């Protein structure tokens, strides 16, 4: 096995893993604020990509304007989802909420199928598609965009959660909702915030991968599940451990496909998911009673 082959596997894995990480963080932000797993997270990834396509083709916007536009619309969908499906619930038990998010994801996917059809669509890359050679391996400029944007979002996240009042309030909700409410934090507003942040992040993830992987009404399912795996590996933290979880997952998948057999690629992800849930339910890096933000 040559070195440049391994290098290529690792590089491919890192760029796929960065996407899993972004989606995974979306999962954990909502989980931390509300205690629910939002299975509609993958649909925001899909919306980001398809809305960008519409902004480019129907509204004829340039790419730099289409992207914020698509993020904004996806965020509005996230707000509507929280307002119409999550907040009105009389008995917000976790199981009810989880079922609602699954229902919501099917609804959003169905509507997207009606609006955009069943075809796969391509979005142009942000800055050309001339491959860049690194050692014996090659990556595309889009991969650099993915890594850079993921990094940027993680930094912004860190600043938000540790250095702003509303970020700290959201962390307080995740430690103890009742206590947070007692000290005057509007818990419901924090829940809404968490949906805004994670739907916007999902949309970003969907937009930056679309030039590489293309997009269709049903891309959210698999990407959502992989993001969920990343979040589980990272112990549902909205910080660096989910990112590492995503990267590990991406690299293992890529190495597995290259060195063992490509038929087991998805199996690898789900075996890891099961192992983590059985052996270390607190995540790969968490202590048994870890902080969750």
């Amino acid at each position: 096995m040559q070195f440049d082959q391994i290098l290529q596997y690792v590089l491919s894995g890192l760029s796929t893993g960065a996407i899993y990480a972004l989606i995974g963080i979306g999962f954990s932000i909502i989980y931390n604020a509300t205690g629910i797993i939002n299975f509609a997270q993958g649909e925001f990834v899909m919306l980001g990509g398809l809305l960008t396509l519409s902004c480019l083709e129907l509204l004829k916007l340039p790419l730099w304007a289409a992207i914020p536009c698509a993020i904004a619309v996806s965020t509005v969908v996230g707000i509507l989802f929280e307002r119409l499906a999550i907040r009105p619930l009389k008995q917000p038990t976790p199981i009810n909420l989880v079922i609602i998010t699954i229902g919501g994801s099917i609804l959003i996917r169905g509507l997207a199928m009606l609006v955009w059809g069943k075809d796969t669509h391509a979005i142009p890359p942000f800055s050309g598609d001339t491959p860049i050679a690194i050692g014996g391996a090659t990556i595309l400029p889009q991969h650099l965009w993915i890594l850079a944007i993921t990094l940027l979002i993680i930094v912004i996240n860190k600043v938000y959660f540790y250095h702003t009042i509303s970020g700290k309030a959201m962390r307080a909700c995740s430690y103890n909702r009742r206590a947070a409410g007692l000290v005057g934090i509007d818990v419901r507003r924090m829940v809404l915030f968490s949906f805004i942040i994670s739907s916007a992040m999902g949309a970003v993830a969907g937009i930056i991968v679309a030039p590489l992987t293309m997009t269709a009404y049903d891309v959210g399912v698999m990407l959502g599940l992989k993001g969920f795996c990343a979040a589980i590996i990272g112990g549902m933290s909205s910080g660096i451990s989910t990112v590492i979880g995503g990267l590990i997952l991406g690299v293992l998948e890529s190495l597995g496909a290259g060195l063992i057999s490509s038929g087991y690629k998805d199996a690898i992800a789900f075996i890891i998911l099961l192992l983590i849930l059985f052996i270390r339910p607190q995540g790969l890096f968490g202590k048994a009673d870890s902080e969750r933000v």
Partner: protein
Amino acid sequence: MNVKVMHFVIAAVSLLLSVNAFAAAPIKIGALFAVTGPAAFLGEPERNSAKMVIDEINKAGGVKGHKLELVAYDTAGDATKAVQLATKLIKDDKVVAIIGPSTTGETMAVIPVAEKEQIPLISCSAGSKITDPVKKWVFKTAQNDSLAVGKIFEYLQKAKQTNVSILTVSDGFGASGREQLKNQAGKYGITIVSDDTYGPKDTDMTAQLTKIRGSHAQAIICWGTNPGPAVIAKNARQLGIKTPLFMSHGVSSKKFIELAGEAAEGIKLPSGKVVVADILPNSDQQKKSLMAFVKDYQKHYKAEGDHFGGHAWDAVMLIRNAIDNGADTSASIRDQLEKTRGFAGIGGSFNYSAQDHAGLGKDAFVLVEIKNKDWVIVK
């Protein structure tokens, strides 16, 4: 609605009904298409094409004084549902023949029903096991995968590129292609140096391609339907792989060129003749049917006609021809179908016989190359 209007409506309706009763009874043809669900990309154009061609036949006065009536149901790609609907078509709607279903799985499930009830079934799906071994009442219009594989291998043999890597999708289409690729390789003196698969929803295949790059293959054959092959084309370009890339007929549509963009240039694939209808030489005996189909489809549905619609078009025309030759019952339609010789349809030139209910030869495919975002026929 006031009483007067009501009377008028009743009168009009009864008049319409009585007129129908006087005309020669229409011949009912059943159809099972996966219009919704995962195989909708097959079922939708198939239903559209069947409707279109039956309308045209009726507009032209029907066949031998009989109008044709299409009774089409949506199976949603579900084999259980397909069986129920097939029974319904036969028992309740009393159809003389059934067109469809769209997928091989559904067809295999419906075959026992058609055989037992003795109703001719013309399947629109490609699996070779549908007509191999031959079943008395079952025909098909879609080209066998083996013909497409043969077309590629024939070219590779001539070009002396005999070490190939194969990369197939892990679904029914890919599995069938993989089997054919492996089975036929020996016959053409071709060695398969690596054999990889990818998932239908995978978004990055650089790992598989990196492995293939290390295997020193002279050609790469990828077997799948959109969007996977487009991702593979892009990944291969990213990795700077110069090995000639071949695709299956599963991506012979403009959509693939659109998705893969620049990366599609130079890719070769076997294709049914629909997508290249306008650049076929005039001597091609299918050209007339192809041009008529493409133009009609464009007129009716404002979209490009594709192979899948062509399978349904062929099935309807085969039944029409059988009726035109004097058949009017299920049994006589079956006998006439088996006598079909040299019918130049959309999928190819059909020659059914008692031993062959697939009816197509290797000339059903042409090898095309993508150049400047369009198809060019490889000589």
